[in-house]
């Protein structure tokens, strides 16, 4: 449950900067090769956890632009670059991470966390839909600067094969920037799979086909939400008339561009009743999709406002979930169930269950204390509240565990 | 035990094509001769020659069958009329020679 931001005392920061945090030993060993792309010493925030040592003092001569002193309350003399000292929580920022700092603020944000599988290129707060359950409502602002920041962030990431997300808002609103980012990712971090969340509406413009074919990222997957097999229901969930039609055209254009596609369905009172029919629609009309993710709802943002319209106890849609998942599975379309506590799941669904909520985002509640499968359970979102709690939540006993395990064979 | 019956149709309700299709569909059990007099179609119905001596339909059964078949084909024609052109268009779009 590690947060992605904390506060430091920040000294001598002239402008917004991204820094790659690096410990001296790693700097010796790898130099700038610690970054996947183009980097120089000035991009580093040198991690000095013993700033008073002679060795540290001699390192002050290095032409790095920033020092990060996790254990110190005060800045040290003899260094004229930026210094980050006195963290609120010294565990948040660690060597290898990429951080962003801005003048006039104590906040240090981790844009890239070493070793995490949930790093994200955040594209924009803008969106052209307004989904009833949106966990982070869009803002109508000009935030094109994210593009530049993400391009720089790609350079400073570690090389390696962990997945990188691209999200928003709606990332395709900044089409040129998005394509530039995908192209740069292909060049700098080709070994990292990209997972791009988009509502697919703008891709109804067929000129995307040639652009995406030209970029030809080898490991890009589009995560596209589809909430119904008909326009009325889908458009209502995303609060945008015409969205269903646009998304379908978008999905087809992505298929024409040979893109990998995942369909994402957030389970709510609006989507659960026709989930089997939606599965049918997906198989008959878009069997080219690689994966269908059926996901429990997160009680964040707009979802809270629309509680009455959205909330359904997951116990009450297990049958639909079961019908949909096996319908797709038999027909060769891979299915996953995300974001539900294991104890509310129909045991036959266990083969599709993924422990999905990222580690910094999930939690377990009191009822979980005696549960035998906490280590395999996605748990709850951090935002969990009793209002959104299934009546089926209970500790799973060792006997019950046997039932699940048999299904998992 | 054979019989012959006649069914008279108003051609505005059951066009010739509908009567012909019904006759075609039932031809393994019934033989239906169609003729036209004014606005009316005359369907002369007799049991078909059955090879294996299977029992013939009664005239009443045949009437039920023919009426249902006529109504079905009339409904089909209505569907076809409403969707005519679409089938051809779909085939044209779907089978476009994408570089074949």
């Amino acid at each position, binding site marked *: 449950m590690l947060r992605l931001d904390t506060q430091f005392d920040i000294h001598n920061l002239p*402008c*917004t*900067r991204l820094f790659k945090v690096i410990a*001296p*030993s790693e700097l*010796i*060993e790898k*130099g700038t*090769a610690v970054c996947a792309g183009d980097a*120089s010493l000035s991009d580093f925030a040198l991690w000095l956890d013993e700033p008073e040592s002679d*060795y540290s003092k*001699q*390192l002050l*001569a290095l032409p790095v632009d920033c020092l990060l002193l996790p254990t110190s309350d005060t800045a040290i003399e003899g260094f004229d670059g930026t210094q980050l000292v006195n963290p609120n929580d010294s565990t948040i920022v660690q060597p290898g991470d990429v951080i962003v700092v*801005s003048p*006039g*603020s104590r*906040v240090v944000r981790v844009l890239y966390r070493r070793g995490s*599988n*949930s790093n994200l290129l955040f594209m924009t707060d803008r969106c052209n839909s307004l989904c009833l359950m949106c966990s982070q409502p869009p803002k109508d*602002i*000009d935030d094109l*600067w994210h593009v*530049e920041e993400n*391009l720089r962030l790609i350079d400073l990431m570690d090389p390696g094969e962990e*997945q990188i*997300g691209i999200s928003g808002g709606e990332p395709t609103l900044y089409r*040129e920037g998005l394509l*530039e980012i995908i*192209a*740069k990712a292909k*060049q700098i971090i080709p070994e990292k799979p990209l997972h791009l969340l988009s509502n697919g509406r703008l891709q109804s413009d*067929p000129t995307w086909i040639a*652009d995406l074919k030209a*970029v030809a990222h080898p490991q890009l*997957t589009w995560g596209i939400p589809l909430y119904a097999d008909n326009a009325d229901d889908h458009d209502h969930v995303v609060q945008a008339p015409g969205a269903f039609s646009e998304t379908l055209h978008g999905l087809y254009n992505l298929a*024409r561009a040979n893109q990998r596609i995942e369909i*994402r369905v957030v389970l709510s009172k609006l989507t659960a009743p026709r989930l089997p029919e939606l599965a049918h629609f997906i*198989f008959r009309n878009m*069997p080219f999709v690689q994966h269908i993710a059926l996901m429990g709802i997160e009680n964040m943002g707009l979802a809270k406002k629309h509680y009455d319209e959205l909330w359904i106890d997951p116990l009450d849609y297990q049958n639909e979930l079961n019908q949909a998942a096996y319908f797709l599975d038999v027909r*060769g379309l891979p299915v996953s169930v995300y*974001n539900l506590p294991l104890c509310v799941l129909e045991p036959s669904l266990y083969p599709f269950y*993924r422990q*999905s*909520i990222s580690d910094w985002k999930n939690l377990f509640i009191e009822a979980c204390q005696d549960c035998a499968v906490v280590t395999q359970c996605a748990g709850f979102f951090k935002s969990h509240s009793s209002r959104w709690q299934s009546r089926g939540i209970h500790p799973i006993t060792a006997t019950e565990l046997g039932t699940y395990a048999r299904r998992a064979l | 035990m054979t019989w012959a019956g006649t069914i008279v149709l108003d051609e505005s309700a059951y066009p*010739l*094509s509908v009567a*012909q*299709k019904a006759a*075609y569909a039932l031809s393994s059990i019934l033989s239906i001769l169609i003729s036209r007099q004014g606005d009316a179609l005359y369907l002369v119905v007799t049991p078909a020659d059955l090879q294996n001596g299977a029992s013939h339909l009664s005239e009443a059964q045949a009437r039920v069958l023919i009426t249902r078949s006529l109504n079905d084909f009339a409904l089909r024609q209505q569907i076809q009329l*409403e969707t*005519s*052109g*679409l*089938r*051809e268009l779909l*085939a*044209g779009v779907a*089978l476009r020679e*994408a570089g074949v």
Partner: protein
Amino acid sequence: MKLISRWKLLIGQAVAMLPAVATSMAHANQAALAGVDWTPQTTDEPLVFKNTLNSVDAVNIYAAHRSHSSHRSHSSHRSHYSGSGGGYSAPRAYTPPPAPTPRTTYNAPSSSTPSDSSSSNLSGSTRNSAPSTQTSPQRVRPANEELSLLIMRVQMALMVKKYYTGSIDGLMGNGTRGALMAFQMDSGLPVNGKMDTQTLNALGVAIP
């Protein structure tokens, strides 16, 4: 294959070819189509679905589906079974992503306007108003800068190993060279005062 045109024509004329029934549908066609934009976009290339149920052995589909009137091979049907009911074909290979990409709570840097920040020294260049889809070329660092960085890393490594107490300046001066030679001597390496591969390896300085 010009045959395709012929098939299209035939399928298109899916009006029953009953004797004497061939009524012209031309008029009705236009009536039905009027008012609806059914004209597909010319860029809309028709998609063809790949079979998701037997994608692995789709290759043999014709062998498997040979006319039943002659001997036909079932082998492709069976190619995923073992003879007596062992392993069946698995669903399409797919490793689900470990987790859905989470949404971070993220706001613009507070004290600078977006345009300021986009032209800040994040990458040292001002963003073009019409960005190209190509990636910006990698900055080519001058060779002497590369060398200087390497020397700094060597100086740091020598410092950690207590051979060097001078400044981390990226210059191969006498102090650095002397420290290198001392390290080489203690490590049983050829004593030449040079940053050769052997020496860098021994210092734990990786070169890309």
